[in-house]
């Protein structure tokens, strides 16, 4: 009789999805809870920098689009929280981990959105990087995660396009609008490049995640792919990427790029980015301000259940 471990490893090897009721190593479960809940938290916290511009969107069309996008992020957070719950952690526990700072979320959302152009840059660069990360997750070895990612990727296809469209419009506008566009790209470029996480050799979770086929590509490989794509796309905007070492390398078939400031990355991850405190404070406030709504809904349901028992 093969052991539980052997059956599990055999499924991973043969690309058979692991489902919630299957036996799985405790470390696999923990790694998934960590990765999936962080992903969910990122979707939820990600609503904040963009939500900042809903009331000031420059037209009704832009406003409707931005609302739709932020609504999508909320939905994506919910898909991922419920997929995480299949691993035996409750919704309350995951939310508490975010609010207490025990769980992280993508460090990109700790940067401020200073101008309208930032909404464009987020769509193009931040969603672009997210999509690069997420498409391979549609084949993650854990079934509920993979299926949530299929939904998410499908819905996100408009996010990046609307962002690029915002930048394209600015890039064809007045001198001030062009400057705004370039300024946003300058500020979001490096944080977006860091979204892929630390280099593979200093990312133990990433290696384990690849071994178990949760992630399919290393951080550096995805980062390179992202840079290659953006280095071409920026030409359509007539803008530039803020990296004077960025140039095509005939030999490698990729763009070379400058050094990443990992000190900045770790500084933001460890809570000292421009908006870390503001983001968590906003989530806590939303959670506390919403408490009476949750209580009222429970009380109403309890009352109705009671009367339907009599039927």
């Amino acid at each position, binding site marked *: 009789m093969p052991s539980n471990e052997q059956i599990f490893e055999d499924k991973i090897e043969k690309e058979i999805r692991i489902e919630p009721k299957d036996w799985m190593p405790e470390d696999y479960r923990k790694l998934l809870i960590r990765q999936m809940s962080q992903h969910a938290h990122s979707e939820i916290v990600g609503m904040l920098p963009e939500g900042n511009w809903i009331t000031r969107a420059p037209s009704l069309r832009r406003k409707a*689009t931005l609302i739709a996008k932020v609504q999508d992020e909320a939905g994506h957070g919910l898909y991922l929280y419920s997929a995480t719950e299949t691993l035996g952690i409750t919704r309350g526990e995951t939310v508490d981990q975010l609010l207490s700072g025990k769980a992280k979320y993508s460090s990109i959302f700790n940067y401020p959105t200073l101008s309208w152009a930032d909404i464009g840059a987020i769509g193009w660069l931040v969603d672009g990087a997210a999509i690069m990360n997420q498409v391979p997750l549609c084949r993650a070895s854990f079934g509920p995660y993979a299926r949530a990612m299929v939904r998410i990727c499908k819905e996100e296809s*408009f996010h990046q396009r609307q962002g*690029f469209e915002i930048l394209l419009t600015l890039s064809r506008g007045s001198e001030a609008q062009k400057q705004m566009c370039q300024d946003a790209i300058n500020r979001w470029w490096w944080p977006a490049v860091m979204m892929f996480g630390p280099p593979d050799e200093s990312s133990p979770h990433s290696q384990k995640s690849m071994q178990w086929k949760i992630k399919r590509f290393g951080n550096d490989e995805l980062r390179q792919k992202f840079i290659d794509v953006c280095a071409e796309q920026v030409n*359509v905007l007539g803008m530039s990427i803020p990296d004077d070492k960025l140039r095509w390398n005939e030999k490698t078939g990729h763009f070379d790029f400058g050094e990443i400031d990992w000190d900045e990355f770790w500084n933001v991850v460890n809570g000292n980015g421009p908006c870390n405190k503001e983001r968590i404070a906003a989530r806590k406030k939303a959670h506390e301000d919403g408490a009476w709504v949750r209580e009222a809904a429970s009380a109403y349901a309890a009352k109705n259940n009671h009367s339907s028992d009599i039927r």
Partner: protein
Amino acid sequence: METNSSSENWPLWEVFIRMRQGLDHKHAGSLHAADAQMALENARDVYTRRNEGISIWVVESKYIHASSPAEAGEFFDPANDKVYRYPTFYPLPEELKNI
């Protein structure tokens, strides 16, 4: 004809089947059974005789709450006028690749 057999009172169960590894459970149909174990075994015999599934969920029908078909129009109305939720709403230049 026997109209008063105890099986008349067996609850109705909805059956969901995962056809292949990696897919969602999909609704297949329903059946009557005295308890969950019987419902699972009967579902296997009724719905997966030709290997149509690798996993079955059963849930008592009374626990399923459905939206009302008569109210479908207004219920789903919020999504009807939001073309900006689709990528085709954002025209971009031909030369832009990989987006």
